[in-house]
């Protein structure tokens, strides 16, 4: 493809994600990768990606939709492979950034021991989990990131258990930085990536990533769904420093939860207990507000 053939709005320098990748329309990961690229201002990280949609994104050999050096790791190994890569960069005094880009299956489930160990060792890694709350690549099975009541191909009567709180798990490792990313709050997203970039050690970013295929939602509504998830309080935007100091970035504005779930067919009225979901959201906010009040972050925003 010549440069002239690329529409103006798609033209950009050789970055992280090239045009012509295999992602579905409305995939949150595609936007996340572009914002990551913008936040890093031309810096070219090394990507370590386990089995997930994120590695299918690359396309098939010898083409690659990634414009930066990328390793396709085994499913559970991304944080360990990245530990090796980052270590050798450090041994050679190369100030390169090593990024893990992984889905919720590779983060919450099969990779959790590896991630826990890399976090405990405080490896110099920027870990981004794009969380679509499902095994999207295999056609939509439940993961421990799937919310309560959601219908998946392995939870036909709705998931019986609430979503795992991965942020609390990472905070409990006392990693230098853990934060949530919204695809509807670009400035906040970019600032958090840059905050993380300036730090050393294990940094964890959690991005709620719409998956129209798995969520049974309209692709053009993806960003608005995330905006609604933040506004109704379902997906809190906050930062945790050293696992102890909390800062809330955006608070709920009273938007009804129904505005979020009614637009996704994975939430079925007969399987979802709205009151239980709302109780979970309220409990989460009570906890976050208490932490932010008692242990406020001193770091500048």
């Amino acid at each position: 493809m010549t440069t002239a053939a690329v529409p103006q709005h798609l033209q950009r320098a050789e970055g992280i994600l090239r045009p012509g990748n295999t992602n579905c329309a409305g995939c949150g990961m595609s936007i996340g990768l572009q914002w990551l690229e913008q936040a890093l201002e031309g810096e070219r990280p090394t990507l370590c990606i386990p089995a997930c949609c994120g590695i299918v994104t690359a396309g098939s050999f010898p083409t690659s939709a990634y414009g930066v050096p990328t390793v396709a790791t085994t499913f559970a190994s991304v944080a360990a492979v990245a530990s090796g890569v980052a270590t050798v960069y450090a041994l050679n005094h190369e100030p390169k950034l090593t990024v893990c880009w992984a889905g919720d299956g590779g983060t919450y489930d099969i990779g959790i021991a590896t991630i826990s160990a890399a976090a405990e060792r405080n490896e110099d890694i920027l870990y981004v989990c794009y969380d679509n709350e499902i095994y999207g690549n295999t056609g939509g099975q439940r993961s421990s990131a799937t919310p309560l009541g959601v219908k998946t191909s392995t939870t036909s009567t709705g998931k019986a258990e609430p979503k795992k709180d991965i942020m609390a798990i990472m905070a409990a490792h006392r990693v230098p930085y853990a934060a949530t990313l919204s695809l509807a709050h670009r400035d906040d997203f970019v600032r958090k990536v840059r905050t993380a970039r300036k730090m050393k050690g294990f940094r964890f970013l959690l991005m709620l990533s719409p998956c129209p295929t798995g969520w049974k939602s309209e692709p053009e509504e993806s960003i608005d769904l995330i905006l609604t998830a933040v506004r109704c309080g379902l997906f809190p935007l906050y930062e945790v420093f050293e696992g102890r100091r909390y800062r809330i970035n955006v608070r709920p504005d009273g938007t009804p939860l129904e505005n979020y779930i009614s637009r996704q067919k994975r939430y079925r009225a007969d399987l979802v207990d709205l009151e239980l979901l709302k109780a979970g959201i309220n409990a989460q906010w009570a906890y976050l507000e208490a932490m932010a009040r008692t242990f406020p972050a001193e770091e500048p925003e």
Partner: protein
Amino acid sequence: MARTLETGNHSAGYALAVAGEANRFGRGAICGAYPITPQTEIVEFLCDFQFTKGRVIPVESEHSAMAVCIGGSLAGARAFTASSANGLAYMNENVFAAGYYRLPIVMVGVNRTLGPPWNIWTDQGDTLSLRDAAWIQFYTESHQELVDTILVAFRVAEDRRVLLPALVAEDGFVVSHTQMIVDLPEQELVDRYLSPLDLPHRLGTKGLTLGGMTFPHETEKHRREIQEAMERVPQVLVEAIDEFEKVFGRRPHGLLSAEYTEDAEMVLVACNTMVRTLRRVVQRRRKQGQKVGLIKVKVFRPFPRAEMVRAIGSAKRVGVLDRNHSPGSGGIFWGEIAASLRQRPDVLLQDYLVGLGGGDVTPELIDEIFDDLAARQVAEEPIWKEVPA
């Protein structure tokens, strides 16, 4: 260091460490370390070693130990680790990944019986279960051979004509936890023997995805390239041994060693420390005028089929001592040797399953096997030679 009294595991740890240290002029050394009996002292030794440019990462599992080696190797470092039995089984996925990524990682496999039921003694079934993982496999009979083979393994694995990982096996406890006089070569000599690693496909600045998706025809090409690299190992190994002799003044074994086979009518095949016992029995029987010989298999992958046929020569009776068991088949070495002898229907090939779960393979047991082989009219299914309780 030079000649010293040392355990097998500390000898292996030393060899891995000095090989890693030799890459201080390159991109350094890396090791993912995780303990398991009877390998633990190797990673303990490595954790204590003061690398000029290297890091040992104590990880949470064998699976991650190999993953660290993969990441470190991809970034250009000399990578190594060690494991045993269920550790190797847990590591399995990434063992295959290392082979398929074509990374010259060296791993010491301290042979131990796979469980359950739990048994910590030697049995080659653990490392042999990795035979299809695109790794070169060496089997060693002594502390000195272990040390020398580790250094040779790096040289072969890193050769541009090969670029495959290598596993060096030693018997758990029989070697790992016993002491022998061993020559541990000085760093300066190892520096001369192992030049800095220059991995052609290491992570650079280009936008390439390593290990991404391929379609069948590319996958087939990839597998054939691995096969061709395996086929180049014998030549590269000879060169590595020649160079080893020049630098260190002694000559390690090659693919296999045929001993007392020239006029032998009957030959037994073995690997690891079983070879040492077998050698004594053969020497005794030779003194008694019996035409018996032995073949020591040093390299299991690539399997030296042509060399095996040559080594068997005119012998008409061949017995295999298999300290491993592939359920539903038999001994794994036997299967390979049978494939090697497919054009030699005149050879009577009998498999003996011996020393499973670490049972002693005694001179008496080997005598029984020689007697059985000598009296045998036809070959049977693999014979279980169990140790007395």
